């Protein structure tokens, strides 16, 4: 009798605890019976009409997984739930390192979130779990650049909201001390070499300030600058990697000359160039737009400026200024319930047509907006990184490159700089490694989606 009483009591306590932990607890969503009215339709070609009920006004909760940018993404969720108070969107931050194993496994076992942020480097692991966007592709392509490069079997599962690419950062104080002004921003690589020499400081034979450093930032320029001279990362079949070519070799030698001929830096001075820049030891580095956020957060005392990546020849428009990678829009879980998918589709449409929030998102991550409505936006034009990049259509995307490209280029450069391997031999090894490692990936380059891609190649 006592035992059964204890059993009943423990079940009761457990039930109370479970009820206390149930998703309904603390929910701010409320049932809605009357659709909003009189609200403006937002968007350009692709539009969003908020004057209707979502999920028939019934309460629904969606989880949204992401690894960063809680506040800027929360603004999207807040704006949407303000329009549709019956919807609750709970943002769950998973650290980057865990995100890419937890997310696919959760999607696979059916416990994944309805909405989740995507980085296209994990395309292969996620594409099988993604619900295609339920959006008119013509309207989407009219408002967003690069949509066709994201077509999979004629459908879009995510696209780019912003373009991330490379540029040169310089220390403004060192720049001024060297007697340089904004008029001295180098437009060509030869000009950059001259400026770097003026920015280099020595104490006797000892380097105390590097004019330019690229230590540990090898993949950024090596996989982008060959495009300036029309050299692609893939052969015409869009499948065979092409790292071992004369153009890539010339890029390697150009950067080696900065250390060996001009001596504006050293492989042993500031082993990680962006850290060295942040520590005030290096005057110029080339890296991608995301470094802007790191500078503000980690090195707030550094006064810096930016300029566009130099090109080989004065006055000549390169084939492309650089490689870019897109920051991706939110994915929808194909395994979610029909109601969740419907609301998620509505939320994605809302997000893609909200110019103000999209602008804030692009500014937050220092990416050029792919939303054409923001092409001439004054806030974008005033951003230190985005203002330096210029035309969005002069950057090329090779697709979500397999990790083998970046790791092989890093090893290639370390072998050249630190292990005494000849550049040509290191390039050949990198080519073999990448070929071997992506042989079974089924990767197909998107280079042929670039507007200036030659008709005959």
């Amino acid at each position, binding site marked *: 009798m006592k035992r059964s009483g204890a059993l009943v009591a423990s079940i009761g306590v457990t039930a109370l605890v479970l009820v206390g932990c149930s998703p309904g607890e603390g929910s701010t969503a409320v049932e809605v019976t009357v659709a909003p009215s009189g609200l403006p339709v937002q968007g350009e070609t692709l539009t969003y009409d908020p004057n209707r009920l979502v999920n028939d006004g019934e309460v629904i909760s969606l989880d949204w997984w992401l690894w960063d940018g809680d506040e800027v993404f929360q603004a999207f969720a807040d704006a949407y739930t303000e329009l549709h108070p019956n919807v609750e969107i709970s943002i769950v931050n998973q650290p980057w390192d865990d995100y*890419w*194993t937890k997310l*696919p*496994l959760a999607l*696979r076992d059916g416990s994944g979130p309805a909405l989740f942020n995507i980085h296209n480097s994990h395309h*292969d*692991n*996620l*594409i*099988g779990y993604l619900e295609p966007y339920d959006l008119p592709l013509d309207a989407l392509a009219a408002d967003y650049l690069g949509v066709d490069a994201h077509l999979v079997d004629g459908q879009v599962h995510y696209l780019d909201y912003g373009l991330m690419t490379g540029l040169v950062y310089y220390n403004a104080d060192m720049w001024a001390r060297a007697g340089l002004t904004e008029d001295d921003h180098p437009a060509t690589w030869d000009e950059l070499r001259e400026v770097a020499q003026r920015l280099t400081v020595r104490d006797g034979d000892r380097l105390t300030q590097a004019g330019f450093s690229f230590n540990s930032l090898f993949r950024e320029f090596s996989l982008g600058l060959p495009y300036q001279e029309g050299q692609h990362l893939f052969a015409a079949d869009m499948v065979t990697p092409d790292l071992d070519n004369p153009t890539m070799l010339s890029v390697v030698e150009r950067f080696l000359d900065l250390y060996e001929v001009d001596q504006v830096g050293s*492989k*042993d*001075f*500031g*082993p990680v160039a962006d850290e*060295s820049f942040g*520590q005030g*030891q290096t005057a110029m580095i080339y890296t991608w737009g995301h470094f802007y956020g790191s500078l503000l957060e980690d090195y707030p005392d550094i006064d810096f400026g930016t300029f566009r990546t130099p090109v080989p020849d004065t006055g000549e428009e390169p084939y492309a200024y650089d490689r870019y990678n897109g920051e991706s829009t939110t994915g929808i879980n194909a395994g979610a319930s029909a109601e969740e998918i419907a609301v998620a589709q509505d939320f994605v449409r809302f997000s893609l047509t909200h110019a103000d929030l999209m602008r804030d998102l692009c500014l937050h991550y220092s990416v050029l907006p792919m939303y054409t409505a923001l092409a001439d936006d004054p806030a974008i034009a005033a951003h230190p990184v985005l203002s330096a990049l210029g035309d969005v259509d002069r950057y090329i995307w090779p697709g979500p490159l*397999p*990790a*083998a490209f970046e*790791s092989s280029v*890093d*090893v290639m450069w*370390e*072998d050249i*700089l*630190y*292990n005494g*391997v000849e550049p040509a031999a290191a390039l050949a090894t990198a080519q073999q*490694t990448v070929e071997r*490692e992506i042989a*079974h990936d089924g990767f197909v380059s998107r280079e042929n989606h670039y507007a200036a891609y030659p008709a005959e190649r």
Partner: protein
Amino acid sequence: MTTIAPSGVPADTAPRRTRRRLHRGERSLRTTVVLLVVGFNAVLLVYPVVSALRGSFHRWNPLNGTYDPIGFENYATLFTDPVFWRTALNTVVFGTVVITLRVAVGLALACAIFARVTRWKTFFRTIFYLPTVTPLVAVAYVWKLAYHPQIGAVDTVLGLDINWLYDSTFALPAIMVMTVWKDFGYAVILFLAGLYAIPEETLEASVVDGCSPAQRFRFITLPLLAPMTVFVVVTSVIAYLQAYVQILVMTGGGPGRSTNLISFLIYEEAFVKYNFGYASAIAFVLFFCTALMTVVSFRLAGGRSLLKAAR
């Protein structure tokens, strides 16, 4: 004649029943505990190991559901992969040097603390053991900073200008020094325990017999410490064949491949390239090498000490 207990139960059978009941209770407790341990190992050890073994014969990515049988292709690739052989060589060099230094430094300091003349023995034991209980990730970050060529303590204190972690001559030795510093305290404590276990009269007898301190160490202390030495070596072999945290934090396997170790290669293949099949194949080769080296260590050191004990 049977004596009847007041309760009506035969007097000689009552305690037997109690004993049997106790015995049964104890037996069921033991069975439960054993089953729990077996179940725990089956779920968290045997099942993953068997899954990984099966996976090593597949092109396998659990994140997107790829699981295509490819026979021995992963193993064939592995044995013809120059990166694997370079990594294997690095692992052998790393393991041999670090284990040797760990044993040598650990034994030397244990003997120094054990000596009668040494004071503040507990203090020294604590100091030497401190790095062992400090998280390896934290230690690796601190040492990485210390090895920085411009702002690092190592170059500043020694008056050198060496880019420790980016020079292929120094990178692996630099990581070895950090690893020995981190781990020697473990060996000190174990060797001290071994030294305290040596019978006092044995050492006194050697003094009476006229042994010099060196002879006493060579012919008494070392042989009697052999089982502990085997234990330290075997646990070190297992630990250092699996070392990867310091590589991940300090060099990422570079420059080039000069500090790449087997376990780091497994990590890279599995969690960077999502090539779980190939990573599993490497893991099984490592597993067999670890088992083989453990057996060899036992045979060599254990056999010799037994032989000497018999003499």
